[in-house]
């Protein structure tokens, strides 16, 4: 099989594929990332059958950890499949941090964490803030240190969807982008390489200082959340909370009690960034 290895934050992967192209794409996009000697996880993109290796080729996502119901993807979307496989290994297999399904940016050693459903805009917001004086830490997972409570970066490729693709190309014309994958299960997807700073400083954690639950598509509003609501929402945003047991409980309870949280609704990116800056100044 074709092979590429990469470290993202504290985690490392061996990516294997029956086809050469997705591996070459990964290699180009992750060129500035370190290569591990002994990877934490293996992800495989395998032909569903011998026939499907050549005729309308499509690959199944396999690896150390797998989920039922995963549908194969056409090989043109192999890059996306490998990224999904990496996320899946983290979600099901990672035990060294409490994982929050969230994006994060850092300023002055302090971290803004944003969590929400796909479509909430957390990914695009983190990418835009990353161009606007913040250090980008990750758009998919934030890793919470079980002992110190610090937020550890996981700056994988930024996954841009649909309208966000053109928007980011406009504001960050010099950034490196992957191939456009049209008609994926999540619409059009194009990956963007995080800034060089995000990659060189990916071993540098920060102290969580503000938690936001953004919702895109509603008129601007800020809502306070009860600690208990925040706690429950974060358990549902954490793929490994239950699997971690007591250390996960301790880390999450501390996070909820020490980090102020707000839900924000917004209609445009500029509006969201203004709200974020204002909340950051008053709360963080």
């Amino acid at each position: 099989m074709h092979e590429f290895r990469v470290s993202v934050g504290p985690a490392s992967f061996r990516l294997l594929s029956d086809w050469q192209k997705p591996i070459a794409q990964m290699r180009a996009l992750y060129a500035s990332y370190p290569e591990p000697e002994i990877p934490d996880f293996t992800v495989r993109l395998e032909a569903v059958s011998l026939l499907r290796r050549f005729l309308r080729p499509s690959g199944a996502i396999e690896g150390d950890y797998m989920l039922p119901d995963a549908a194969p993807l056409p090989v043109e979307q192999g890059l996306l499949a490998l990224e999904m496989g990496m996320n899946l290994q983290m979600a099901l297999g990672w035990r060294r941090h409490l994982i929050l399904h969230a994006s994060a940016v850092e300023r002055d050693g302090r971290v803004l964490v944003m969590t929400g459903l796909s479509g909430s805009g957390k990914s695009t917001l983190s990418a835009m803030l990353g161009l606007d004086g913040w250090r980008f830490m990750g758009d998919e997972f934030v890793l919470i240190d079980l002992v110190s409570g610090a937020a550890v970066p996981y700056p994988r490729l930024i996954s841009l969807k649909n309208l966000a693709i053109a928007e980011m190309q406009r504001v960050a014309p010099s950034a490196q982008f992957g191939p456009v994958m049209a008609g994926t299960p999540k619409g059009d997807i194009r990956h963007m390489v995080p800034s060089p700073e995000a990659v060189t400083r990916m071993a540098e954690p920060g102290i969580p200082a503000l938690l936001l639950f953004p919702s895109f598509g509603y008129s601007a509003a800020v809502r306070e959340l009860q600690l208990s609501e925040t706690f429950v929402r974060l358990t549902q945003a954490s793929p490994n909370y239950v699997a971690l047991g007591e250390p996960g409980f301790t880390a999450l309870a501390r996070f909820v009690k020490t980090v102020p949280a707000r839900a924000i609704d917004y209609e445009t990116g500029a509006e969201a960034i203004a709200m974020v800056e204002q909340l950051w100044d008053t709360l963080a």
Partner: protein
Amino acid sequence: MNDRNPLYRAESPDLLIVEPLDDMTLIYHRRSGITHMVTAPVPEILEAMGQELVDIATITARLSHQFEMEADASDVIAIVDSRLADMMALGLVERASEGTA
């Protein structure tokens, strides 16, 4: 077995991590690894039970001694009974069965 006045025992306090948040309290149950989020009077009942085998009347009396409650005595007993049943289903409380009660 004394069906009319069953005795209950709460999980050992060392196996529960209690973390009050707001009007909800988190209870992490070390034996099961399950996090429960509870409202009053659940933490208060567990506290009132201590580590002994106790009946509902004792629990209710201890609660009434500590707290002012907006309910008459028979309601309090019914509510405590209902919460004990909830906690039994989750393995946070166990009822003594025949022989020793």
